[in-house]
């Protein structure tokens, strides 16, 4: 029989990753309630399968992989009506302001992203928004680092071309953020 889950280990894992996982889910769903619901489900799975969760940084990647799988399957799923989930969704509504973007720029970027192949878009967003390196993304999506690097380069190239075609001058912020190097 399995040993009972290690509460201390779970709490450490939860405490150090919950905001990142919630941010990831909120960005991808665009729906605070859905994000809160999937957050609870992600960590519930982690709790139930704690012995399977890798130690250290790999555990963080494992969680993102679980959250990603839930996102892929979330369409049409039944929502939780748990009061804590509802409260978290409310807190998200209060805490996260709606980002106002300059219209043309936002539209061009959104269209450019939407035009990318799904996997390339996912890799680009995991890089830009979550700050993952190719090796980490490979662990999350179940691919190889080399393939991730190739797709990331393609995504950047295609998006740049798309923006150029739109004749839209889009300058990066004064202090460009580069993709994190592989550890």
């Amino acid at each position, binding site marked *: *029989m399995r040993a009972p*889950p290690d*509460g201390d280990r*779970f*709490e450490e894992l*939860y405490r150090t990753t*919950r*905001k990142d996982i*919630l*941010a990831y889910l*909120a960005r991808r769903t*665009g729906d605070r309630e859905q994000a809160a619901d999937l*957050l*609870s489900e992600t*960590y*519930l799975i982690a*709790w*139930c399968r704690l012995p399977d969760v890798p130690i250290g940084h790999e555990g963080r990647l494992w969680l993102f992989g679980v959250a990603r799988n839930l996102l892929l399957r979330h369409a049409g799923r*039944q929502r*939780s*009506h*748990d*009061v*804590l*989930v509802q*409260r*978290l969704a409310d*807190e*998200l509504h*209060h*805490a*996260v*302001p709606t*980002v106002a*973007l300059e219209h043309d*720029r*936002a539209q061009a*970027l959104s269209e450019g*992203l939407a035009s990318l192949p799904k996997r390339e878009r996912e890799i*680009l*967003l995991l*890089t*830009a*928004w979550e700050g993952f390196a*190719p090796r980490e993304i490979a662990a999350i999506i179940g691919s190889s680092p080399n393939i991730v*690097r*190739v797709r990331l*380069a393609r*995504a*950047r*190239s295609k998006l*740049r071309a798309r*923006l150029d075609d739109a004749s839209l001058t*889009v300058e*990066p*912020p004064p202090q*460009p*953020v*580069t*993709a994190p190097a592989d550890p």
Partner: protein
Amino acid sequence: MSRGDTTDVGGIDAIVRGIDPLGGGLPETHGLERTLDEIGAAIVSDGAFGTRAAPRWRRWLAVPRRLAAVAAAVLAVGGVATAAVVFVNAHTGIYPTKPWEREAGGPGESLNLAGTNFRQVALTVASDIPFPPGYAAWRTWLITLAANSSSCPKGSPAGCKMLISTGALRGSFAQSAFCAWVYDWRQATQAGDAAAAQRAAQAIREAPLWKAVVTLDPHPHAAPPYTGRHGPMSDFGWLLPYRHAVLAHDVSAVDGMLAANYGLSGCASVRPPAASKSGTVVPSRSHGS
């Protein structure tokens, strides 16, 4: 721009970061942190969390009797407080929708332990699980034990309800019924009541095929030693050594297992205590009854 390069020469990442829906990340707010804390604590707590946060149903079967009333295979769900409600239905219409949910909370509908009609519903749910004659008090005691678990743990959200799946409930009845048959066989054997012993042995022989058992553990298995609760066994694997000993008419082996309280939680956890209102632990038997 160097196409194919792995570095973000064109600054595309930074541009994409500019349309981050969260504007760079989640802020530090007291309300957000507190709610996240509560969710984490709820997941870890025995009372569990949400409709998909049931503790493993086995807890209901595995916990010692003294703990069963507070750590049953129940789950807490948030809801609207129902003060001054005259009738609360034990049926909730909540079913697990995913395999792992079923694994966590047990199969079947989640019943509200605080339901006005919980006792009747529980009796109906377990009506196909046979107890030996004279052991009705065991069934009643088990239902009382479950109903007494209807209070939510401290710190639960307002409107919390304690639920138990019909699968978990039936599993606990099956465990109790099997043990009742073992005690019945032991008593009949001691009393020289061959007919009753044979009837008990037949029930014990068929127990691994009870629907309540097969649903939860279709392939039971257990490895020696058959004492205590530490030998490797599946959820109902512990039935097999008892069954083997009974069919071999090995009284001493049965006595040894009963004395060691062998099993997932042992038979001692699923029978009424001697001092309970339900009556004696094991009904007395007259010769030839």
